[in-house]
């Protein structure tokens, strides 16, 4: 059955359908509807909702809930997402499954409450200390808010890792038709490693802390971390290709910006310009396979994103392996289709400056 839902509400309902029974968070625009929705919905399904005194408490309550095996989530935006970074690093070090949502807004510091794509670096490059990585999903529609939130919970458990949903103010606030899947039941006791009171398997009790302390020999920890992230990087890249087979220039864009780029591809093709698009669905791991597949034949990539200086463009350049890369950071306004087509013309004419 299809139903009309606001992006943030759909994401929150998807968490319920995925078996999430614990949420702790704090109000911040433009993610607040997730908090509001779950404040009534979670008690209805026997779950726990806590409006915490801060984002710090929110992420650390999620850490505690995750340690017991419950599917747990928190959400925030920009400044509040910054406050969660220490907790995300700890959750990574303890290898606990959890889902963290950042409904991105625009700008540095307080910035602006309007839509934006300002947190790519923070989400993708490990916003906290120590060099961890998290799977990062970038939905571009209300339906994808649902689909990737459910996937995020499964992947979080598969790899025992925090997973980030990098949504944005537009996807969060818009209403679209969605199809909600059947809900899943989650058994918090299915894992032997979760805190539940000691038993014969752990006669001295479980010691849940940074896994560097108890679970690995001195020389085995670093290889473990490398293997862990290599496996995610190899197996979890997701992307969509639009008209890339014969493309001369490929746009690279995610989230709300990819929707404008989809229109630009169509308009360019109508004028005989061979434009295509690669839309990363996972931002980490970045879909380098998609670039490696195309960078022999394509003349240029144009990274389009909604921030002031360009962030994702650095990863595009990293995997372009010499193919020229151009940037269109649209700043605090959403990318403009006509401007994309104008930049494409400049690239074709050789008058546009490369990004690096």
């Amino acid at each position, binding site marked *: 059955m299809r139903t009309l839902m606001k992006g943030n509400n759909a994401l929150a309902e998807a968490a319920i359908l995925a078996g999430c029974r614990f949420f702790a968070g704090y109000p911040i625009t433009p993610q607040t509807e997730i908090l509001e929705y779950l404040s009534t919905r979670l008690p209805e399904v026997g779950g726990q909702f806590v409006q915490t005194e801060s984002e710090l408490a929110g992420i650390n309550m999620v850490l505690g809930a995750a340690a*017991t095996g*419950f599917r747990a989530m928190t959400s925030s935006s920009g400044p509040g997402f910054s406050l969660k970074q220490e907790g995300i690093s700890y959750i990574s070090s303890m290898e606990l499954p959890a889902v963290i949502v950042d409904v991105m807004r625009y700008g540095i510091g307080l910035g602006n409450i309007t839509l934006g794509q300002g947190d790519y670096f923070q989400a993708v490059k490990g916003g906290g200390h120590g060099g961890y990585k998290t799977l990062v999903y970038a939905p571009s529609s209300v339906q994808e808010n649902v689909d990737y939130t459910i996937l995020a919970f499964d992947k979080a458990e598969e790899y025992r890792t925090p997973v980030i949903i990098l949504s944005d103010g537009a996807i969060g606030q818009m209403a679209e038709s969605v199809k909600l899947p059947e809900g899943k039941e989650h058994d918090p006791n299915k894992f032997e490693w979760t805190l*539940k*009171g000691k038993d014969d398997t752990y006669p001295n009790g479980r010691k849940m802390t940074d896994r560097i302390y108890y679970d690995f020999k001195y020389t085995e920890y670093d290889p473990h971390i490398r293997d862990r992230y290599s496996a995610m990087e190899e197996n979890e890249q997701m992307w969509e290709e639009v008209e890339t087979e014969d493309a001369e220039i490929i746009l690279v864009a995610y989230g709300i910006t990819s929707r404008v780029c989809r229109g630009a591809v169509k308009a360019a093709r109508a004028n005989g310009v061979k434009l295509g698009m690669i839309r990363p669905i996972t931002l980490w791991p970045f879909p380098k396979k998609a670039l490696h597949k195309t960078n022999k034949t394509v003349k240029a990539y144009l990274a389009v994103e909604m921030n002031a200086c360009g962030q994702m463009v650095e990863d595009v350049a990293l995997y372009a392996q010499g193919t020229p890369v151009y940037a269109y950071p649209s700043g605090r306004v959403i990318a403009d289709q006509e401007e994309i087509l104008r930049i494409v013309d400049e690239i074709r004419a050789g008058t546009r400056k490369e990004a690096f």
Partner: protein
Amino acid sequence: MAAVKEREIPRSIYAANSFCPGCGHGLVLRLIAEVIDEMDIDRDTIGVLAVGCSCLTNRTLAIDLLQSPHGRASAAAAAIKRCRPEKLVLTYQGDGDAASIGIAETIYTAQRKEKITQIIVNNGVYGMTGGQMSPTTLVGQKTTTSVKGRDPEVSGMPLNLMEVLKSFEPAYMARGSIHDAPHIMKAKSYIKKAFAAQMAGEGYSCVEILSPCPTNWHMTPEESMRRIGEEVIQYYPLGEFAKGGDQ
């Protein structure tokens, strides 16, 4: 010749602790272990440790334990209790963790009446980092960040956690000390009452325990105990500050 009683080690202690000689943590942990054993709840207890010396508890206390980020132990513990309400959930924190970086979490755990027990070991310094001033350092007390003694004009007055938490009407709240045998036994009874209040579903409970840090106080263990008895309890009075509805 009278038979020498064999030294008894609580079942819930699985290895010797690695605290400094004369440290109070070993004593407090022993009291917690004894209470857990007496209540026979070692399989039904989950502890949350802080950052600082308290994290060494991982290597000695034989219960399920989580080590939280610095200051966040009570938030993590509250979540654990909400997910597993049938378990006894305690935190084990120092004064730097619970009263400084984690004061917001401590206050809101009490304010929301989270059904956990916070055990806060107050030795008036940041021990693991080498003896810096903490919120509970006494006026005039010398530390590595107050070398001429704590000056209230610069650093304010020492923080009295019991006073801060009283207004939230905890189910049980007490401050004990371990500077001599009678006080040690009293402190144990406070821990036991706090656990009992939690298991009875009465709400939030907290036990603060005044404890020595000879290493960073630059005193012998005996001098440290004497200092608590003569000086520290003057500023931090002992006793029960909340006894719950039914007690």
